[in-house]
């Protein structure tokens, strides 16, 4: 099972080709605003052989800042159309949880909360069991409130791990798949734009 995985739900833009759990190649770039510039270059770094396509495309569908998030999803959908290869979504916090376990950042028997920056002093967060199965969430909430919750329930909070494409691939491989629909968690801003002037 060869999976091409992508995540752009944080400042980390990453892409990876993973064959049944073995990373064949991967590339990443950190820039909170440069996803659309990075994605094409990172894809070419994979040096993919277009004559032997992956079986599946997996994409982190957030939650995450919207503009970057949409880059990864649009790119994954575009590849899916170009190759006629199916595409699935993966909750980006599931990928974070996978990375946390992979890097042994929590003790192996504990539940934990994984969080990423949602701006406006908020976290995107979800609660996981020790195996990385999502128990609650994803949610968006004030960092303060999440921290209080963590103190009360005495479970650990990991808020400094970013989702990577190799974790997205792992989640997709074990069947934690979603529709390819962005997890916005907030309503679209109802502010009319200043029109583009030229």
């Amino acid at each position, binding site marked *: 099972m060869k999976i091409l995985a992508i995540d752009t739900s944080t400042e980390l833009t990453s892409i990876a080709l993973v064959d049944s759990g073995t990373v064949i190649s991967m590339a990443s770039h950190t820039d909170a605003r*440069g*996803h*659309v*510039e*990075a*994605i*094409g*270059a990172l*894809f*070419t770094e994979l040096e993919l052989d*277009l004559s032997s396509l992956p079986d599946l495309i997996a994409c982190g569908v957030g939650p995450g800042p*919207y*503009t970057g998030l*949409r*880059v*990864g*999803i*649009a*790119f*994954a*959908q*575009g*590849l*899916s*159309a*170009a*190759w006629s290869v199916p595409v699935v979504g993966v909750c980006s916090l599931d990928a974070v949880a996978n990375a946390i376990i992979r890097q042994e950042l929590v003790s192996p028997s504990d539940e934990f909360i994984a969080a990423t920056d949602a701006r406006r002093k908020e976290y995107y967060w979800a609660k996981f069991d020790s195996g990385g199965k999502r128990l609650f969430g994803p949610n968006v909430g004030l960092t303060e409130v999440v921290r209080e919750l963590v103190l009360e329930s005495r479970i650990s909070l990991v808020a400094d791990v970013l989702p990577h494409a190799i974790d997205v691939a792992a989640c997709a491989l074990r069947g934690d798949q979603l529709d390819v629909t*962005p997890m*916005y968690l907030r309503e*679209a*801003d*109802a*502010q*009319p*734009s200043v*029109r*583009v*002037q*030229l």
Partner: protein
Amino acid sequence: MRINEPLVLGIETSCDETGVGIVRGRELLSNALASSVELHARFGGVVPEVASRAHLEAMLPTIELACSQAGVSLSDIDAIAVTAGPGLVGALIVGVASAKALALGLGKPIYGVNHLAAHVMVDELEHGPLPEPVIGLLVSGGHSSLIKVVNGDFTSLGQTLDDAAGEAFDKVARLLGLPFPGGPMIDQAAQNGDPNAIDFPRALRTDPAHAFNFSFSGLKTAVARWVKEQQRLGNAISVPDVAASVQEAIADILTSKAISAAVDQNAPHLVIAGGVAANSRLRALAAERCALAGIELRVPSPALCTDNGAMVAALGSHLLRAGAAPSPVDFPATSTLAVSEVLF
């Protein structure tokens, strides 16, 4: 890469229309469109986040529709073209990311192109090779500019200093209680009105420093003031007369400046494009004045005047046939882009 009749797929997402068009050389094969305009109507203007979400949802179905209407499959495509700017950056990004994936996935070149230049170049699909030098008058809710094209180079002669022409229509429509988008509503209401009923101002008409620039913000103020004054005097307000008079002022200033640009630049051809080019009075007045001045007028049909994917494909095809090098894989989407920057 240089092909005489390349099959080019163009993607447009700079504002609220998700457009995918396919051309072969200068031949239009399909022009699929999904619009989020109805989602914005209750806000009275385009909401960027609403537009960006709608683009992502519409992108794949619109690509599929364009392919099926053209009777081609993606593997037949020779090159991808996409609007890289100017426009709403969050909206542009959806198109650029999708286009990069198609190009890289198919192993084909990509052309990140200028939306304004595409508005002018789309005329090739209906009226054949663009004669040069030619003046382009671009008028829509997002832009009002005068462009000169000579030897394939695009230069800006002037633009609006404040509101775009389409924006002026929207704002006046709102004052008159007509729904968004205002252009078609004003056009319709004006059919039964007297264009000479009220003498609204023509800004920058005689200012030599702004010979080819426009200003429309004063028009809205003038209409508001006039409406208020009539209400104070207890006079009934004729919406058709106001609509016709406003439309006359806008059409007058646009056409007179476009024609003086053509005369000044020795460019005996004028292309009018953008959503406002669908305005019936603008078309009629431009035809009348171009005939008098001996200028050939070319106006693409309405579906090619408003934002669409075929115009992007038309420009991509033009660049490819001219032997232009494709864009690098890391080109950005950018909200501001001068018309002289035709290709990234």
